[in-house]
């Protein structure tokens, strides 16, 4: 690349970076213009042109130039140099010792070193020092001062942005097709369709509707009985009866609680760097399921999750809710504790912002938000509140810090657990002493044969394979891996005097190896003999003697007793032990692991409490805790204060409660909008605002802003009741439309169905797929609640062994399967279960071949198909078998064509013999099982119309 094009390339990329990428470096905050005292002489300018400018161009411009320079420091102009960057003034004219730029190039401060790819020459550093000493002579006026945007949108502009305006109470529009309007929702949707001269789809048939609403509210398919009951009910209230039945079922909380768990990035393990089990997270999960089943008002639900420990009526339930703040993935082994604390706060702010406010607050950690009206000071005003909150406990596992928990254990329980802990410790230490003892025995045996090892080692070359070594070791009864290592050791330590004789004697020519080996034996056997005798002698005078006075013998003794010397025992038990010892060791290890996994935990909940209260926190320049700037008082984001005023913050508390109460007020411009949009998303597959976690500038604009505001005010006017919103939405004509509408003109104009001219076809979520396979085959275990992660609190899910001990064979509802970060259950992850480290309101719905592999080959699916077939085998007629299967799987009877096709398939499949199988089925049974599995794999099963 020529230098000209290189420059263009650089400028282009820097421009690009400024436009698109949000970054750790950023915008100019500190504008401390220095007074340039003294005049600048021509000599000095010449010095600048000859020495300084080339240096700046060569070593600095790549990053510190153009519109959005790194660290906000632009060295391309005199004004830029004087303006400094995010870290403040770069230079103090005349004073190198006070100039950050000089400090950086000197490379003495490890946190501040420039240029980053290596220190400048001493000469170059002196040029810069001189330049500063001279008062920064600099003729460059042509290059403009960095004018990168200090923020994406000002507070004033922000208050005009749709999502920061107070929620309006729109009037219900009047429409032409009044008979279609069953709820105000319909009028808002229909008015848009009528404006485009479009007709909504016809109402869905009753079978489609009950399948749709049952999956929607409970995550399960309707049973054939439920379907026929609904079909038989001709009353006007037939559908609302179904809705109420479903809302009253405990399955409702399982389905809708799981939606919230997506937002709360719920998991049963920490993930990230050190994957420790969250043995008490299930209490938060059960809290959420109960909250939905009991229709806990959302304002209260919010307050409990952010400040349940601080509410006046705090109790175990409300404190359990604060698990929300602790559930994040944390770098538990981060050795830099200050960084860990700020990173954790960042994760909390990011989650709180996305979950409740639809705001990417985390983007303002290093600089003002690039797009939204959020200041970096807003970030640290909130961070101060969380800095005053304890998210970590006082205990740790080695280098791994523990998260904070509230104990509800009784004294008796704790006493009882001490015994359990002691028993686990005993089993662990038993296993490790067994290992150590066995290793020591092998070491002693090897030492007794030290001379043989040296003899044998002279029989092969250092690059011999272990296979060849094994053949040589066998007749001598030596440990092949020790012998193999012994030969390598001799190779690596050819100048060790102890082995000088060995190297003299050892021959590379195989014909003379035998005699050499004899010589080696002669020499070393007597040498080792002498050492042992000398040791015995030494111990006679001093029983504790360990070393020998004779310098030469002492060298040999050291080599002989060095555990990582020529007789090193492999550290890996699989390599060191014989089969029997290994089996015994594994047995003991496994006993300790099982005892630990199954041991009860002390009754405790994950949750936060107030810590040392800070009323202000410095801005962290460029997000670095090593670079504090101006302190900011605790407070709430300014752009939202016009709609909802900030209360007084108590000096003796973190102010989490005040923050939560403020967020949960009906005046808050975002909270209710964000939540009703979530409800809409979970019913219709797409939110009115498509970006459920981003109501900012880069988020979508609402497809129907009046409807969104109407829903938000309806919600807050009805005690923030989620079930009220369900009843309202489900009663609408919009919800009850068919999912196909062939004649609509909008097929081409609005293929994404943003205006809702039909009900959107939706693929089942991972849990719905698994649970319905189990339900249809009558295998589903409907028990509720309780701990299900098969690990003790804080036990390693994965240690260095990478062995996966988590099993997913349970037949309970999917919400009760463990959510292991870094290794989510494959059935879930393939079907778009969300990343449990990030708040997710809108799951993806991908189509990938591994999903097909799962449905074709996974035991869960095949076992269920076998079971489904067993049920069918009890139905007398084959055609009736097909009818029953369709009713259970699809909530409809098959057509004649489908019956014929199914019978032909079963007939054909029964003819071939079953492959190797541990499940002993008759050919006919297996044929029906294949048919049932096909139903599970079909689109009709996986999609809801």
């Amino acid at each position: 690349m020529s230098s000209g094009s290189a420059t263009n390339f650089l400028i282009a990329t820097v421009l690009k970076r400024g436009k698109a990428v949000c970054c750790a470096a950023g915008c100019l905050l500190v504008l401390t213009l220095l007074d340039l005292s003294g005049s600048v002489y021509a000599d000095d300018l010449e010095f600048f042109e000859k020495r300084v400018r080339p240096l700046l161009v060569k070593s600095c411009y790549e990053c510190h130039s153009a519109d959005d320079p790194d660290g906000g420091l632009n060295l391309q102009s005199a004004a830029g140099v004087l303006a400094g960057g995010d870290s403040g003034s770069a230079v103090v004219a005349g004073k190198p010792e006070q100039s950050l730029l000089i400090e950086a190039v000197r490379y003495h401060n490890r946190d501040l070193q420039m240029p980053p790819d290596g220190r400048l020459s001493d000469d170059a550093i002196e040029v810069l020092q001189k330049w500063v000493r001279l008062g920064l002579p600099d003729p460059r006026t042509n290059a403009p001062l960095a004018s990168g945007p200090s923020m994406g949108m000002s507070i004033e502009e922000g208050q005009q942005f749709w999502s920061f305006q107070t929620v309006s109470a729109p009037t219900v529009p009047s429409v032409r097709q009044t008979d279609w309007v069953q709820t105000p929702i319909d009028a808002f949707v229909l008015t848009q369709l009528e404006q485009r001269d479009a007709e909504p789809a016809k109402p869905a048939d009753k079978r489609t509707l009950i399948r749709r609403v049952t999956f929607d509210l409970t995550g399960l398919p309707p049973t054939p009985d439920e379907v026929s009951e609904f079909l038989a009910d001709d009353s006007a209230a037939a559908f609302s009866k179904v809705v109420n039945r479903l809302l009253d079922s405990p399955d409702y909380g399982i389905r809708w609680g799981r939606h919230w768990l997506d937002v709360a990035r719920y998991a049963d393990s920490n993930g990230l760097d050190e994957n420790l089990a969250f043995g008490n997270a299930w209490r938060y999960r059960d809290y959420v399921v109960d909250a939905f089943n009991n229709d806990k008002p959302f304002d209260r639900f919010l307050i409990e999750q952010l400040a349940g420990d601080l509410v006046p009526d705090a109790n175990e339930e409300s404190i359990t809710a604060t698990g929300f703040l602790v559930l994040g993935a944390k770098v538990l082994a981060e050795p830099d504790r200050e960084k860990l604390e700020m990173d954790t706060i960042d994760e909390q702010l990011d989650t709180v912002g996305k979950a409740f406010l639809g705001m990417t607050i985390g983007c303002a950690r290093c600089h003002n938000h690039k797009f939204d009206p959020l200041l970096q000071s807003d970030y640290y005003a909130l961070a101060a509140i969380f800095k005053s909150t304890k998210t970590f406990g006082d205990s740790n596992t080695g280098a791994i810090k523990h998260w904070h928990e509230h104990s509800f254990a009784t004294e008796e329980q704790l006493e009882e657990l001490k015994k359990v802990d002691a028993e686990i410790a005993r089993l662990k230490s038993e296993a490790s002493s067994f290992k150590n003892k066995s290793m020591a025995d092998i070491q002693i045996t090897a030492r007794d044969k030290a001379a043989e090892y040296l003899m044998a080692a002279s029989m092969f070359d250092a690059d011999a394979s272990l296979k060849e070594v094994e053949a040589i070791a066998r007749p001598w009864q030596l440990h092949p891996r020790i012998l193999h290592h012994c030969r390598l050791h001799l190779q690596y330590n050819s100048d060790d005097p102890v082995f000088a004789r060995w190297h003299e004697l050892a021959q590379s020519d195989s014909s003379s190896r035998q005699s050499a080996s004899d010589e080696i034996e002669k020499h070393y056997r007597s040498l080792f003999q002498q050492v042992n005798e000398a040791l015995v002698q030494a111990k006679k005078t001093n029983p504790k003697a360990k070393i020998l006075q004779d310098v030469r013998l002492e060298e040999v003794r050291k080599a002989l007793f060095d555990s990582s010397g020529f007789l090193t025992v492999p550290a890996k038990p699989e390599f060191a032990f014989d089969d029997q010892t290994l089996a015994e060791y594994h047995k003991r290890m496994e006993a300790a692991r099982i005892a630990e996994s199954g041991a009860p935990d002390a009754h405790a909940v994950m949750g936060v409490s107030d810590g040392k209260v800070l009323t202000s926190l410095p801005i962290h320049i460029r997000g670095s805790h090593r670079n504090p700037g101006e302190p900011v008082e605790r407070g709430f984001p300014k752009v939202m204060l016009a709609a909802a005023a900030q209360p007084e913050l108590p000096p003796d508390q973190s102010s989490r409660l005040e923050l939560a109460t403020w967020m949960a007020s009906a005046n808050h411009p975002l909270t209710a909008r964000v939540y009703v949009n979530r409800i809409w998303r979970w019913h219709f597959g797409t939110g009115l605002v498509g970006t459920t976690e981003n109501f900012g500038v880069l988020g979508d604009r609402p497809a129907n802003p009046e409807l969104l505001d109407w829903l938000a005010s309806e919600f807050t006017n009805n005690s923030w009741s989620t079930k009220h919103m369900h009843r309202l939405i489900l009663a609408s004509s919009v919800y009850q439309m068919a999912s196909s509408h062939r004649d609509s003109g909008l097929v081409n104009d609005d293929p994404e169905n943003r205006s809702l001219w039909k009900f959107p076809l939706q693929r089942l979520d991972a849990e719905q797929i698994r649970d319905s396979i189990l339900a249809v085959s009558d295998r589903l275990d409907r028990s509720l609640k309780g701990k299900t992660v098969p690990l003790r609190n804080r036990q390693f899910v994965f240690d260095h062994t990478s062995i996966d001990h988590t099993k997913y064979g349970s037949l309970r509802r999917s919400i009760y399967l463990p959510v292991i970060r870094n290794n989510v259950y494959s059935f879930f992850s393939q079907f778009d279960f969300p990343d449990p480290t990030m708040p997710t309101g809108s799951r993806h719905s991908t189509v990938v071949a591994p999903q097909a592999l799962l449905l074709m080959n996974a035991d869960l699916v095949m076992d269920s198909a076998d079971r489904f077939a067993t049920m069918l085998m009890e139905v007398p007629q084959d055609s009736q078998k097909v009818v029953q299967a369709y009713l259970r799987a699809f909530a409809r009877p098959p057509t004649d064509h489908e019956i014929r096709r199914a019978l032909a398939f079963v007939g054909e499949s029964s003819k071939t013999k079953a492959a190797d199988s541990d499940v002993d089925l008759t050919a006919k049974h297996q044929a029906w099982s294949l048919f049932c599995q096909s139903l599970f794999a079909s689109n009709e099963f996986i999609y809801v119309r």
Partner: protein
Amino acid sequence: MASDSSIECSNAGTRRQLLKSSAVGFGHLALNAMLANTVNGSGSIVHGADGDPLAAQVPHFPARAKRVVFLFMKGGPSHVDTFDPKPLLDRDSGKPLPFDLPRVTFAKQGNLLRSPWKFSRHGESGLPVSALFPNVARHVDDLCVLRSVHGTNPAHGGALLKLHTGSDQFVRPSMGAWCVYGLGTENLNLPAFVTICPTLAHGGVNNWGSAFLPAHCQGTPIGNASLPASRAQVKHIANARLTGSQQRRQLDLIAAMNRDHLRDNPAELALQDRLNSFELAYRMQSAMPEVQDLSRETDRIQHLYGIDDPVTQNFGRQCLLARRFLERGVRFVQVTHSDSEVQWDQHGNLYQGHTKNASEVDKPIAGFLQDLKQRGLLQDTLVIWGGEFGRTPTAQGSNGRDHNPHGFTMWMAGAGVKGGHAYGATDEYGYYATEDKMHIHDLHATVLHLLGLDHERLTHRYAGRDFRLTDVAGRVATDILS
């Protein structure tokens, strides 16, 4: 491919819409996949940007490398004992480090500790390699030894995540996922990114995940570190209960049902995709075992990789498997050398542990390089070797070394990099990178550059931000380009 003929496309426009509509992947059976593209060595196959997202894409500028293989040494091999000799360390062993330790260290540091291994010069380049790697040393003229790599995180989890994803704080797409995102793949019947026996600890799946990138970018694990390579499998790739003909008949029934369903739900593009995904799954079921069948290799090749020796057979299998994936057009292959006990993490017993580890990988790596070269694959394959950090020149305990992210060695070989070249340097004891420092972000920028991708232009918008592998940093180390 008989059943494919039943898929009818009314017009190309609809088809294009269909392809864009759903994120699909390893794979998505789209129109392009039916053309069954496999690499033939004659050049990459370029499809329109609106085709299958996994189809091979045109890079930003001409690529030097077409594919990447990362030989990952889990635990952190010591650079001062392998590729970065330090005579002063030998001289001053036992004395304190004559300058400041980092502000944060993982464990307590002792005095300087000399290397137990001698270095000697090899090849025409005369680059020094320690006695730990006698076989790799024979290929030293192909290696570009990066002696100034540095990261930030001194703990395994953070450092693994940083190395694999560029972030130690958040879940971000992995390096391999970004490569697939940028370039697609050259064999649509196989995953675009595979990771062979990866460790499930210290970031686990995130180290090969796609995070917010489309699902087809994620790595497909073949086994994991707790399993021997001979037993490593893709999950659910085989069905032990059914015969091939039973399953074929079953897929025909599913296809018939799905076609009826599609007729009742026209214009639902995902339904068509799903119909096709079963056919691809069925083909993958046969493609995958074929790749994994090492018995198709000659004795000479098996010997070259050390598969006939118990010490080297496991890693040898992994490397040979990697070659078979690479030559079939897989874009990114990671091979992890881990272990249920020792790994490269010698806080104590450096001598013993590194001896064991090096003897397990040395011959397979050398054989792998030789094999790639013989087949002409090395010229457009980038090979990367290294761990999540290096180790301290100071002692931990009496005979170990602590984690050291401040300066360590990785090496590259193959496409686009200078052979027999040492780049950058650490200080005279090997603690800090000092010359031509190469941060992990710079390494990532350089890898992408070699693939023809500009790390600042390879972005993905998610939750209101454009993300890159290199965040806001990263420079291409142009000095190492051949």
